């Protein structure tokens, strides 16, 4: 049924038969380009293939770039030391666009086209949750570096693990004793009105209550907001600590406007480094943060008491003493999270060696071997610090850093204990069938 008045004509350009055939041929060529048989099944002498689900584009691109750098450094170190079970490690990268729909497709692509041994490296929670069903259905071990509570909540499936970075529930819980003892007992929370903020909204009040402190106000700010001044009068005057976890480009405006609102007479400020990952702490507008405190997973700035393992890790990844790329001071890293890639790969190595892993037919053994792990000692493989691992909930627990902004740098003033972040298991993945 042809339309007559050209309603769908997007241009009036004429089309020759030859041009049309060329176009069709080009389209067909694109369609068959991937090479269906390029990738062959891993064999005992072949490399271990790790599918890296990377946020190369989309909202997670800044994280994705540093996750790739850290992963490349870890793989280089592992291969230099003999690989895994004597086999070299090969990383195959696919961009998920930081999109859960594409993420699931990428996991399927790793499983059925690249035929990787595992999938690894996802950060953003919605991509992890969107991809988890594909991992479970393909029986593909899926090692994420997300810090979300979704893995430990046991609402995903037995093939999803988070052994290299602590989850946000544990992080928040760990902060409460220090906040109550050092910053103040009356806390006002300001958080973005979506899931990341809800974790803080839900987990902080009970953790503070257990320390004899309280949340006296919770201010949720819509993610579309670009100006924040109108929210600040909602902060109760008796507030001793403002706990803020704003993220995204608007964080600079948020801090600037908060500074203008309070001037020099402000309550204590406590934030999460998620707000300022890949952002220079000395950016214009952030001066107001001087003297405030932040959670850091792994310190961005080199510390006086850094262990030899931490120094070696930083050198291997290529970050300078300020946490920026060596040779490019403006390229600030995502230090609080990216160490998780390094540590996760060493957990994978350990589990594969424990399982005597030979190929995809041993994936179930790999899952069980990972679940059997209980602790990771601090050292070159775990430079952020020691960790315990709960195989029932597939989640590790570790130390956290509290850093103070001083002279345009972040100085670690407190390290929490692993026990500070432990909580009751909410389920048991090991009861699920493999």
């Amino acid at each position: 049924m042809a339309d007559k008045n050209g309603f769908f004509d997007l241009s009036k350009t004429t089309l020759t038969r030859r041009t049309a055939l060329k176009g069709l041929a080009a389209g067909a060529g694109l369609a068959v380009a991937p090479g269906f048989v390029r990738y062959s099944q891993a064999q005992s002498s072949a490399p271990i293939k790790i599918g890296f689900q990377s946020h190369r584009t989309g909202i997670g691109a800044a994280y994705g770039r540093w996750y790739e750098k850290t992963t490349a450094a870890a793989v280089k170190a592992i291969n230099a030391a003999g690989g895994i079970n004597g086999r070299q490690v090969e990383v195959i990268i696919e961009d998920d666009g930081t999109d859960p729909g594409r993420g699931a497709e990428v996991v399927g692509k790793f499983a059925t086209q690249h035929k990787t041994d595992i999938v690894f490296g996802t950060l953003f929670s919605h991509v992890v949750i969107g991809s988890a069903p594909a991992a479970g259905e393909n029986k593909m071990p899926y090692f994420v570096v997300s810090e979300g509570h979704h893995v430990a909540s046991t609402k995903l499936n037995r093939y999803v693990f988070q052994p290299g970075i602590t989850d946000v529930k544990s992080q928040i819980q760990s902060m409460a004793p220090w906040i109550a003892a050092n910053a103040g007992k009356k806390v006002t929370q300001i958080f973005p009105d979506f899931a990341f903020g809800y974790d803080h909204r839900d987990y902080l009040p009970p953790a503070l209550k257990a320390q004899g402190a309280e949340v006296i106000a919770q201010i949720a700010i819509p993610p579309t907001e670009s100006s924040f001044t109108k929210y600040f009068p909602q902060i109760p005057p008796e507030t001793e600590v403002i706990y803020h976890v704003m993220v995204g480009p608007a964080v600079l405006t948020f801090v600037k406007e908060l500074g203008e609102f309070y001037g020099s007479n402000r309550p204590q400020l406590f934030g999460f480094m998620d707000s300022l990952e890949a952002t220079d702490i000395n950016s214009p507008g952030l001066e107001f943060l001087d003297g405030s405190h932040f959670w850091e997973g792994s310190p961005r700035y080199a510390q006086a008491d850094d262990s030899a393992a931490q120094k070696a890790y930083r050198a291997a990844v290529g970050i300078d003493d300020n946490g920026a790329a060596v040779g490019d001071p403006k390229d600030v890293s995502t230090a609080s999270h990216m160490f998780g890639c390094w540590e996760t790969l060493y957990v994978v190595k350990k589990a594969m060696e424990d399982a005597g892993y030979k190929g995809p037919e041993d994936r179930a053994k790999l899952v069980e071997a990972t679940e059997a792990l209980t602790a990771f000692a601090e050292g070159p493989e775990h430079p952020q610090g020691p960790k315990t691992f709960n195989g029932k909930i597939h989640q590790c627990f570790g130390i956290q850093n509290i850093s103070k902004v001083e002279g345009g740098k972040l100085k670690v003033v407190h390290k929490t204990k692993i026990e500070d972040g432990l909580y009751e298991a909410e389920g048991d993945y090991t009861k699920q069938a493999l």
Partner: protein
Amino acid sequence: MNEASPARAYALHLGVIALLFALSFVLPEYYHGLLARIMVLAVFAMGYNMLFGYVGLLSLGHAMFFGAGLYGAGLAIIQLGWGVPLAFLGGVACGALLALVIGLLALRTTGVAFMIVTMMFAQVFYLLILYFAAWTGGDQGQVVPQPARVLNFGATSLDLTNPTVRYMTALVLFSLVLLVMLAIVRSRYGRVLVAIRENEERTKMLGYDTFSNKLMAVVVSGTICAASGAAYALLFGYVGSSFASVQYSILPLLWVLLGGAATTLGPLIGTVFMYYVIDVTSGYTSAYLLIVGIALILLVLFFPKGILGSIRQRWLGWLP
């Protein structure tokens, strides 16, 4: 207007369905899974094409109908513990009801205003998903548990997570919607819709109630999109707000424009084309969206009516 004999048109469509069935046995594993997903999303595109292609109403809010089906089916399982068939019907019903309400309100406008109004309603729908995060999972979304995605028929059961079952289920849905679309296009009702697109005032003068016909088209379009969303939740096990975002309102528009608006098979061709361009180019460069953009520009220049639309215009005038 060149008309195909019914036999030729139906033979073509049944041939396409047979081809898709045959591909199930020869496609490599990855492309087998990808095509299942493409067929489900092509249903979404067909629903969009119903309104855009045949009525000439450009909506920028169809993600809400897809989302209504997605959440209607997904939450029925997660929150209410419904079985798969009932959850699917629930999702479709949510989409149909939403389309009826949106149609009643949005059809008071036309042209650019219709685009804006549908986009605003879709944004309200999207923000409601975030607002009721306790039930919907907010921006993170939720997993539809694997054990719940099983169709039980007495002693036998069909596991929707099995690749073959999933492919065939997607094919059944796609085939059904494709044949329904063909029947609509060839029916008197379909001709009235095209008449409205070409000249609404003249259609009114001929005695047709154009509002009712357009409203029916919105409801059918929304229902088909919701069926796609419900199937997506059940077959792929994830319900998330990104599927209700503005991106998923624009995607079906692109798929339809690429494949050929007002062609029954254009939505499938456009969806396949777009998926493969993204899948292939993303393997070579992180700037794959640039390549997608160039591909779109080239298509606009050389296939102004979309792939199938241009083919119909130049060679196969009988294509429905």
